Each structure stands twice: as C-alpha cells, then as structure tokens.
C-alpha cells in the first residue's frame, strides 16, 4: 500500500508544483510589466511560444552558461510584455482560433536563429495597434533585449521589426 500512497503523492505534488509555479509567474509578470488582466490572458497563451523559441535557440548555443539561460527565459517574458504592451510585432498577435486551442501552438518561422520550425501561413492579425514609441515602463526591457542580442537572435528580430 505504501507504493500506492507514494504514487499519489508523486502525481499530486508534480501537478501542484506546476500550478503554483504558473500562478507565481503570472502574478510576477503581471505586476512587473503592468499588464491588464486581458493582456495577461494573452500572455499566458503566447509566452509558451516565446519560451519555446528561446529554448530552440539555447539548444543551438549549448555553451551558454546556466545563469545566462535563466536570464534568457526571463527575457522571454519581457519580449511578450513588449509585444502585448506596445503592439510592435504584429505577427506575434495571437489569432482568435489560437485562443480556443491552447495546446496547438503556431510557431512562425524565424530567420537567422538556427531554428528548424516549418514555415506556416501568416497568422491572422488580431487588432494590431502599432505604437510609435514604447511606453515608459517597457523601455527598460529594450536594454535587456539588447543584452540578449548575442544569445537570442529572435529577440533582435523582435526589436528591429517596427
């Protein structure tokens, strides 16, 4: 019987840890980037994709030291906040169908970062609102994105795409 108890504890603990971590990250991202609830919902959907992209790139630069990898993942959140807050990157806006199918992530093909994702048709743009200037609370993340330039070509692409 002790094996069964251990299995139950194992499964519950793994899922509880993931859910708690998710809630903590979401709270942090929302407060740090001053996102509205709606933006945060979008962030939940899109940040997975961004982190997946970061991971792809990190895999290609496997010599990246551990602290830098953590920083890169953090930059993933920053990139999304910039995206959602400013509307800079139109092709990062989620398509409405995307909202209903969270598990089916559409990864746009990104040039120059060594990724091997399949090129997909352009995603429908959801309410693109190009911004001429990033809001003040997002400026600091520009600097961080520049730090990530050496390691994260896709972030450079994000920044350079008006």
């Amino acid at each position, binding site marked *: 019987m002790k094996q069964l108890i251990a*299995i139950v504890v194992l499964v519950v603990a793994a899922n509880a840890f993931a859910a708690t971590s998710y809630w903590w990250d979401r709270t942090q991202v929302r407060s740090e980037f001053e996102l509205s609830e709606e933006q945060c919902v979008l962030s939940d959907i899109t940040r997975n994709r961004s982190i997946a992209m970061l991971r792809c790139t990190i895999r290609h630069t496997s010599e990246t030291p551990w602290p830098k990898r953590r920083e890169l993942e953090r930059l993933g959140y920053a990139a999304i906040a910039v995206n959602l807050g400013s509307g800079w990157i139109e092709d990062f806006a989620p398509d409405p169908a995307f909202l209903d199918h969270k598990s089916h992530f559409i990864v746009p093909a990104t040039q120059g970062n060594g990724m091997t994702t399949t090129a997909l048709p352009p995603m429908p743009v959801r309410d693109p609102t190009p911004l001429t200037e990033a809001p003040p609370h997002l400026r600091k993340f520009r600097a961080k994105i520049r730090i990530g330039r050496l390691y994260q070509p896709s972030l450079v692409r994000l920044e350079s795409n008006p």
Partner: protein
Amino acid sequence: MDRKSAQERVNRITAFMAELRELDREGVLHLSEEQRAAIEFHHSSLATALERDFDVDTTTGAEKLSLAMKIASGLSALALSLALYFLVEQFWGRLPLPAQIGILAAAPLAAVALAELAARRERTLYLTSVLCAIAIAAFVLNLSQLPNLLSVRSSPISLALFAAMSLLLADRYRLRLPLFFGLIFATSFVAMFPRWIAGYSWQNLYERPELLILAAVGVGLFGRRQKPDFAPMYRLVCGLALLVSFLGLATSGDISFLTLDHKLLEAIYTLAGLATAAFGIAWGIRRDWTETTVLASVGVVLLLFSKMYDWLWDVVPPYLFFLLIGVISLALIAAFRYARQRLKENPA
C-alpha cells in the same frame, strides 16, 4: 516460490514424464505399475497445486496461449496508450485550463487504481501489466503537457519522476514491464541531469554518452542486489545502455567529453566496447545469464560492422565490402563454435 519457479517445475515434470516414457519404449528402464502410479500421482497433485496457486500452464497448448496473451497484453497497452494520447489531442482545445490540468493529473491515478483492482482479481497479472503501462504513459503525457499549459520549464527531473512511478509500480506488483520502463527513465535521468546542472542542453541523450556508461554501470551494480525475477531486467537495461554508448562513441568521437583527436577516441572506444562485450559474453556464459550473453554478442557484431562501414565503405567497392562482412561473419561463427565446444568440455 514465485510463478516463474512454479512454471519451471511444471516444465521439468512434463519433460521428465516424456523422457520416462521414451526410456520405457527403448527398453532401458521399466518401472512397476505401482512405481509409475506413485510418480504420476505425485506429479499430478503437484501440478494441480501449482496451477491453483500460481496459474501456471500445465500443457503445451496452454503455454502457447499464455505467450499469445503476453503479446496481446503488450499490444493492447500500446494501443490504449496511443488512444489516450490521440483522444487528448482531438478534444483538448475545447476544455478550460483547470479541466485540462485535472484530467491530466487524474488519468495516471485512475489507471493505477484500476491496476490495483485488477491485481486483486487476477493471478497472471496480464491486465495489471497493461494498466500499469497505461498509468506510466498517462503520467508521461501529464508531465509532458504541463510545459505547454503552465509554462513550466521542461527538465530531466521529469525523467526521475517517471522512473519513480514506474519503479513503484514494478515493486508493488512485481512486474517486469514497469521495471523496464523505470530503469530506462532512471538511466536517462542519470545521464542527463549533470548536463542540465552544468547548463548544457539536456534533451539529446546521444551527446556525451560517457554519462550513459556511468548510468549503465550504476544500474548493473544495483541489479546485483535484486531478486532473481528482477535481476535479468537490470542486466538487460545495463547492457542496452552500454551498447548504445559504445556504438555512439565508436562511430562519432566528437560527441565524447574528452578532447582528444576524434579518430583516436573512436579507436579507443571501439576497443573498449569490444572488450566489454567479450567480458559480457564470458560472464554471461559463466553465470548462465542468457540476456547478457545475447546482448553482448549482438554488441560485438554491431560494433564490428559499424566500424567496418566507417573504415571501408568509401574505400572499397560494395562487393568487396559485403564479401569482407561475410568472411568476418564466418569467423565469428567459428569463434562462437569454438567457445561452445570449450563450454561442453568444461561445463563448470
């Protein structure tokens, strides 16, 4: 006594009775009717008791059906796991996030509960084995979907969790299928965890396979302390991990941790792999470990042929290449025949 030992006893009884009849027919040994009846009564009672207690097969037909049931169990475990996966794929997007998490977490627990119920009702544990495999698959699906749903960073720790669950199930029901999965997960975890800690990409098991060699040695050492029903599986996984590591290092020296010349490393690991395989064959024969002997023999063949491909495919014409392979195969057969003859002469 466990089911395996009981089945071996029944098999020995069947063989003994057949040989007794043969000796009688050839006029070598004639038992009196009383003696024959006493032996038959004893064996019959014993077989009935073993069949009742361990559900062993007492006839050849039943044994063949048991084999068919084992194959069907494996196939149904695979099919049901795939069905679960594709069910999730098809309807997943329509469910709210809490429902998704709830289903993912509940699935392995439900499968374990069903396995427990099945284990209390059957002695052969075929259905239990299938349900354990489904529970493991559901847990793998659970943890592999969490990074997508909750932005959890994937890490080799999930492999340790898979291993823990598989080994707990194996220990609970004394089943070898969950044990095999558990050892594979545990070996992969041991090989990947140091890479992850050091900040390297951990997903590719085939980079720096020296860690896999260490993991294989660890599994082999743990296997020495196991009971006879589990020990062969430890040796099997140990042998598989060693085979994969040496094959990789012998053919691509650039994946090694060592910074020596690639060609030199390949030569070193080829020799080390062949020496390990030769040791495995000798040790397997000495200890009567069938799986070790077979796996080590396969290792020798694969290592030799892969190196021959590396060395000769671009240098000699195809007919010569295959001719050389044929000649080496004949040499291996001669070597194995010599070893077999020596074994017959000195069985100890």
